[in-house]
């Protein structure tokens, strides 16, 4: 176990012990260790790296340290700045988890139910990755989540850059109980008035957050960006259905004219209805 004080020291520590596993809040990692699924040869603790536990403004973006806890992200200052991210951080787990779990940990462990992930996808956030020898590279968070690009050995996510959109954003989550629980489905909806665009991402229904791009484009074209920015209920409902069908499509026959595939099971149909309701409510609240 090493406890480096800077990002570069941490990267060096990982390079020195390639088998070491970095640990920040440990809310996912330690559960795997305790259940015997994981037995890391060594740990590099990221908790003492002050530089990644804060945040700053940078060219119209917020540069968020990967070590920011979910509890910190849920506080009112963030809620005013990046409302959807704050809402997702508040919705994540019980207080004990939020006090320990970090933004970077959420991104790197990339659990399908990670609550901040659809928000990062909808915001088109970028991960700033620190590598050996002081190298830095930038990768869209969605690429990391989709596995299009991976963290290389010895690399760490240092920061997450989030554009400041100065417009309403929502994050809605459906769970199995009233108390804290894992998402059955979640929806992040953000408005980007500068680019006249609505962006939406659906979490927990697939291994990574899903972006219904066509539905986004369609609904963006309906909104009067210079005026009231409201939509009639039918349009909101249609958007919800559009998103849900894109995220949970009907099965297609394997070949042209082949056997029609079996219909979706009731559980999947319920999930689709849930996604439709979340997307509709999310956009409705963002435009209200």
């Amino acid at each position, binding site marked *: 176990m090493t406890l480096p004080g800077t990002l570069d020291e941490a990267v060096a520590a990982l390079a020195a012990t390639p088998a070491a596993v970095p640990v920040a809040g440990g809310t996912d990692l330690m559960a795997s260790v305790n259940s015997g699924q994981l037995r890391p040869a060594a740990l590099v603790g990221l908790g003492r790296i002050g530089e990644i536990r804060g945040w700053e403004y940078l060219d119209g973006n917020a540069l968020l340290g990967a070590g920011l806890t979910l509890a910190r992200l849920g506080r009112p200052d963030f809620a005013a700045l990046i409302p959807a991210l704050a809402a997702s951080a508040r919705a994540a787990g019980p207080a004990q988890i939020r006090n320990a779990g970090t933004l970077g940990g959420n991104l790197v462990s990339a659990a399908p139910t990670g609550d901040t992930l659809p928000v990062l996808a909808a915001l088109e956030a970028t991960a700033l990755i620190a590598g050996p020898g002081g190298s830095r590279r930038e990768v869209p968070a969605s690429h990391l989540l989709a596995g299009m690009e991976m963290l290389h050995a010895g690399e760490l996510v240092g920061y997450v850059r989030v554009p400041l959109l100065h417009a309403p954003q929502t994050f809605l989550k459906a769970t199995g109980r009233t108390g804290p629980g894992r998402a059955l489905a979640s929806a992040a909806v953000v408005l980007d008035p500068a680019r006249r665009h609505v962006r939406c991402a659906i979490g927990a229904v697939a291994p990574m957050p899903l972006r219904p791009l066509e539905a986004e484009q369609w609904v963006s074209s309906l909104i009067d960006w210079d005026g009231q920015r409201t939509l009639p209920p039918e349009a909101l409902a249609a958007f919800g259905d559009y998103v849900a069908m894109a995220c949970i499509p009907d099965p297609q026959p394997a070949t042209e004219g082949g056997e029609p595939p079996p219909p979706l099971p009731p559980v999947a149909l*319920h999930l689709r209805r849930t996604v439709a309701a979340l997307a509709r409510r999310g956009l409705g609240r963002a435009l209200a």
Partner: protein
Amino acid sequence: MTGTGTADGSGAVTATPAHGTRLGAAGGTAGSPDGVGIGLGASLTPVDAAAKAEGAFAYAADLWAEGLLWAAILRSPHPHARIVSIDTAQAAAMPGVRAVVTHEDVPGDAAHGRRVADRPAFARDLVRYHGEPIAAVAADHPDTARLAAAAIAVEYEPLEPLTDPEQSFTAEPLHPDGNLIRHIPLRYGDPDVTGEVVVEGLYRIGRQDPAPIGAEAALAVPCPDGGVEIYTASTDPHTDRDLAAACFGLPPEQVKLVVTGVPGALGDREDTGMQVPLGLLAMRTGCPVKIAATREESFLAHAHRHPTLLRYRHHADRSGKLLKVEAQILLDAGAYADTSSDALAAAVSFAAGPYVVPHAVVDGWAVRTNNPPSGHVRGEGAMQVCTAYEGQMDKLAAELGLEPADIRMRNVLATGDLLPTGQTVTCPAPVAELLHAVREAPLPPLPKDSPEADWLLPGGPEGAGEPGAVRRGVGYALGMVHMLGTEGADEVSTATVKVNGPVATVLCAAVETGQGFSTLARQIVQETLGIEEVHVASVDTDQPPAGAGARGRHTWVSGGAVERAAKMVRTQLLQPLAAKFGMSTELLTIADGKITSYDGVLSTTVAETLEGKELWATAQCRPHPTEPLDETGQGDAFVGLAFAAVRAVVDVDIELGSIRVVEMSVAQDVGRVLNPRQLHARIEAGVTQGVGAALSEHLRVAKGVVRRPDLTGYALPTSLDAPDIRIVKLIEERDVVAPFGAKAASAVPVVVSPAAVAGAVRAATGRPVVRLPIRPQAAVGAPPQ
């Protein structure tokens, strides 16, 4: 939050909802205000409450002995497999490993069990459920033990698991005893009558886990005489000792079971599957050996509530009067019988609920499968049928256009009526009063009535709930449980009360599992002897047996024994005085350590009268006998019955199917309130457990393999899920055959609450709701207009 309760300074042992309402304005209970006074009816605080609240209480997992070794158990990863070979050589050769035991090392009976000896201590040639013990290791470090257990090479030949209880009848036998554990064909009245109105339903109840706060743990210490002492949090020490001794091939007196650090129990705690390997390892190594189960092991190993499939047909006339109940009840027992026959007897006997039914045809079966083991979890059998017959009552009400509460009121049972088992209900059965009480209780306000309040919507504080999509529903349920053992079980408990100076001591093998027995024992002695300082000794198997802590047994049988012993001591104490003054002992009273005569002439203290002597007495209590159900399910099988009515108010987001229970109103038939605060805590805990069973608690299994055996995958109710609990009425009609007239209080709210929640969701959504826990897709209603 609503609530009329007082600030809760109680240290009650049960987990109660954070904002539970203590007592509704209508609840008239005897006794003194919280924490004041002594004796029966006072709200005495448990002696260990502060230690538990402060984290200072030593649980079984905190046990320690000099030079102890750590044990780990190798459990089967398959639900059904043939064991081709077990090779322990590599594990035994690991540094730090002191002993490895398998089925070959079990000297005594290879099979044990609570009712039927059908469960091997270690699987021999066949594993029958995921998590069945195969071998155990003792090592000088817990990690070494765990690694060594993993290093035992077991060659399995996986077999197709039998997971559908309906297939069990025709499948290859899983066990030499066959797949059918018990069949009760109950026939009552005329089986061929038909009603003007008939409703049918198929209901499924999930697998609730007791999920004890502390996972199982034990310490075994070898004795010089070749025996062993086992320190553990058993709830039924004598049965556990006898089972373990049979496996060790030792006479029971060479095995001593010391009860320690019980973290609360909702079923049988500490299965013998753990005590036997531990004792074997201690005797093999000659060292103390400790085991502390992981949460995952705990979920795999201990008994669960029987998942149940119920098919019902209710016949009634046009006025809503019940004519006949037909039911088929199938209990999934898992691989071994355990207490399944008891659960089945309760399910079949209470299949019609607390309603008068002139004719009944009920068939109940408990069958073996390769699913996780089922056993005693409070309210077993009764809870599953309650959800089904109350679902049927709702269906009948809808069919006839009646209010759900009206149709129930038309059919309620009362003292003197017959159960479908032919047994006459002789105890108080104030079912109509209970239903009336919950019906008349004011409903909680709607959000539109107090818009300024901060409403918790279904889905939680950061959830997606939308007020426009939320519908409120109200559901009613009535239910019953039996008290004590059934069908001729010998219920006996023995207690000793000693008085020495100003201090009295109670010795009784009744385990304090959170039900409050040790507090009650103190109150009984205080009441009878007027001595304030009463100690309750810890429990071990050197004391005479008191039976398992379940179904109000200890309040009735052990409490009765304590009272008798205390009265005998009272007579010993007063007899010389009475003789001296030429009056009978009845004319003397003891209070606050003083003895006074009726006329005030005599006044002395207990200490003076004792003159330094120690007085003691031992007494037994045995309730009136019961008889087994015969081949048509007839017989006086129950000592007593307890009833409750619950009204559930739920909010459902009918688009997402998310449910929040807003309020549960409970009216309960308690016989007599002995400790108001403890009683309230027990009812609140029971309701909360029932809400868990209704909404989220189900241990998921895929092809016999337990999925996610952890507290993330198994969702217990949190403080946000626990509703406001309003105890609107406690009916104190004393049961004359019970000591103090008190009835079992903990199980009946567990039985009735899930049915009430299901009824409320039915009312909110218009959906049938035939499955517990209620899944979101079953609670999606018609789209909002």
